[in-house]
């Protein structure tokens, strides 16, 4: 039966090439936009280099101090003291990666200026996050304790500073007029990973900032690694409980908010949320609203084209009805035909999206961001494709099934 439908669908597609072109154009373009958008979102939501342990990780990013009477608030990243003094005491934290926000500095080499964004990290940073080392190795607890002037640099920095593919381990790199010995080179990290992207990583003890100063606001973020994924919800509760006991630094504020978030929550908290609310629902709602608005036009367009095509086939439908085909059979047939059309459009759309993604990656719009058509992206796009096909097929099929046999036959 399906085979027959397939044959009919192909025959119909071949008959009116212009309409086929319009439908395919609409479907494939819509899918291209959705696929590229999903690939982009995927960069923010799904596991990505170097952060591969998301299912047992929680992210501590912002600290918000509030004066509920006056409505003031003060928000920034958390302090090292807060992480070291309170968070590290939590039972269920197996390891904690601490890093400071990236600070930009200049280095001058051969009359060329290089901008180096460096981060201070602890030793466990390299155990929690799986950076890929092209050469050398990370610094360890011993380097931190001795405050050794060592640095791990990114591939990009190495190529800019020492020349492409020159071995850098053992050489010295100068930033802020201070020389650091390079002990490792890691693969570049996409700038979309706010917490992990940097050009150079240095032990935090080297910093002359008062990193152990008492206070809650600072410039650090942390990844808490639980022992198992099942521990994560409990760790989250432990964190909230600990937070309720943290003493406030001064009388100006009466409330402090900080959260151990899943990765997605930590992203939405920065964009649509605040200390109390992760903003996850708001972000999902906004995305869905945007998607609906975007899909509205192509869907209406496809529906009206489909109706036009069906009316063209009224004689065929009339004959089938006259010989006893039920309305549901016809609806089914038409939906299948429409799905076939959508799938062809979908394949074209995927081709177009891979071209679009190639150009986006090539243009390097966001530093080191490489979009990919991962299985997750493909699955989502396929889902969108099916949804689109059903949406634009159901109404015309229903209209068709209600055609009056006599009128349909007479139209010939």
């Amino acid at each position, binding site marked *: 039966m399906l085979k027959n439908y397939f044959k009919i669908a192909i025959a119909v597609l071949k008959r009116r090439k212009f*309409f086929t072109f319009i439908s395919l*154009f*609409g479907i494939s373009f*819509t899918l291209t936009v959705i696929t590229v958008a999903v690939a982009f979102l995927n960069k923010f939501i799904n596991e990505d280099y170097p952060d591969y342990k998301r299912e047992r990780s929680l992210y501590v990013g912002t600290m918000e101090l509030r004066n509920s009477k006056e409505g003031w608030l003060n928000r920034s990243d958390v302090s090292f003291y807060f992480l070291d003094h309170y968070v590290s005491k939590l039972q269920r934290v197996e390891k904690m990666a601490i890093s400071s926000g990236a600070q930009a500095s200049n280095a001058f080499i051969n009359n060329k200026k290089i901008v180096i964004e460096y981060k201070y990290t602890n030793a466990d940073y390299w155990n929690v996050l799986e950076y890929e080392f092209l050469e050398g190795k990370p610094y360890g607890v011993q380097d931190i304790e001795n405050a050794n002037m060592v640095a791990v640099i990114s591939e990009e920095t190495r190529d800019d500073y020492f020349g492409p593919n020159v071995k850098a381990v053992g050489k010295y790199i100068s930033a*802020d*007029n201070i020389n650091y010995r390079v002990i490792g080179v890691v693969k570049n990290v996409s700038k979309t990973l706010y917490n992990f992207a940097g050009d150079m990583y240095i032990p935090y003890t080297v910093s002359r900032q008062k990193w152990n100063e008492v206070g809650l606001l600072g410039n650090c973020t942390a990844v808490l690694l639980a022992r198992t994924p099942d521990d994560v919800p409990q760790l989250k509760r432990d964190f909230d409980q600990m937070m309720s006991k943290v003493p406030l630094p001064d009388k100006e504020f009466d409330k402090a908010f900080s959260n151990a978030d899943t990765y997605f929550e930590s992203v939405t908290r920065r964009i649509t949320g605040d200390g109390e609310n992760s903003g996850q629902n708001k972000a999902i709602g906004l995305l869905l609203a945007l998607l609906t608005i975007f899909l509205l036009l192509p869907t209406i367009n496809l529906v009206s084209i489909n109706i036009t095509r069906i009316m063209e086939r009224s004689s065929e439908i009339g004959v089938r009805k006259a010989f006893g085909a039920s309305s549901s059979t016809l609806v089914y047939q038409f939906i299948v035909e429409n799905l076939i059309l959508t799938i062809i459009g979908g394949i074209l759309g995927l081709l177009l999206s891979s071209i679009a993604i190639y150009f986006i990656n090539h243009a390097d719009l966001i530093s080191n961001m490489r979009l990919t058509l991962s299985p997750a992206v493909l699955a989502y796009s396929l889902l969108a494709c099916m949804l689109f096909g059903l949406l634009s097929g159901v109404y015309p099929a229903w209209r068709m099934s209600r055609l009056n046999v006599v009128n349909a036959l007479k139209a010939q």
Partner: protein
Amino acid sequence: MFKHLYKLMWNKRKQNFLLLSEILVSFLVIFALFSFLVYYFQNYQKPKGLDYERVWTVSYDNRQVSKQLDSARLFYDDLERSLKAMPQIREVAYTSANFPYSQSVMNTNVSLGDKVINSVNRYVSGIDYHKVLQMNLTEGRWFYPEDAAAAIKPIVINETLKAEAFGKQSAVGRLFDNHDKTSRRRIVGVVQDVKVEGDYLPSGKAMYTPLDTTDIKWNSFILLKVTEAADANFEGKLYKYLGQRFNNERVEITYMKDLRTAKNEVTLIPMIIFMIVAGFLIINVALGLFGVLWYNINRRRSEIGLRRAIGASSTSVSGQLVSESLILATLSIIVGCFFALQFPLLHVFDVAANVYLYAILLTVLFIYLLVIACSVYPGKQAAAIHPATALHEE
């Protein structure tokens, strides 16, 4: 004539309803696009209000600078003199973090009698700030070093703030209270608006306050206007020199030109993506419209043939079909305008009403052109129908 056409369309209301909603949604998308474009274009046409070429910004960590007022003052005065003594540097000025094209914003309120003016950008600026940026004074003067001794501290405001506070009257000599009315400031000058957020966004209300002794110890940004002789070699030397002065703390030099490009990209890139997506949507709609109209005409061959047979000219036949689509478009446009007009009426965004009006005008024009373009060819085809063959088919 119109009544008759309307009746014809009413008979096919089910089919036309889809077309109608399609045009309506396109109207709204195009309206959103044109609103942005008109808004950006209007801002783009205004002068920049500064010269960013060969302006370098230096940011540094001030941890090593003494927090004692006098020694900090001495240190910064000396640093300014030594920088200015370099032949490659023309002007030097300290600034707060929110210098033009930076990521920082610093807002405050000012009051004028009982009137409170919200979200005024406050720029803490050194004595030569306006020379570094080559800002244009339209009224009064910039700060003098002697102002430091004045009982009421001076400020310079921009034209937008002046217009909101004083209208067309002169602003020089007038007084502003700060937000809680604890101190007053005397306006000594008015400068042309500086588009700090990039070329496509408005300057906002701005006031410039002189960097006073209490501010200086927290200062961590310097603006430099350099000469053509300032090359990478000089930049390296300057970097080293600043590093020494700040005891090897973090120092970064950026070009204001690059900051401007980055700021503009933040506005332009989403706009370009929106335009590409909207462009494809419109092509999609145009093709769909074209297809449906073409098909409809083919179905009405007998009707058209009959009209031709009883003497209608080919132009009147194609005219009828084009005006049918135009009536359809008009109906959508009326509904669309109803929605679009809510934006200026309800002041949804803080944007001048004329932006929306221009946008609506452009959208109406665009939709009519689109519909005409899509219906002219099918109309022509209809006109070419030979009455004899069309009627013979029947």
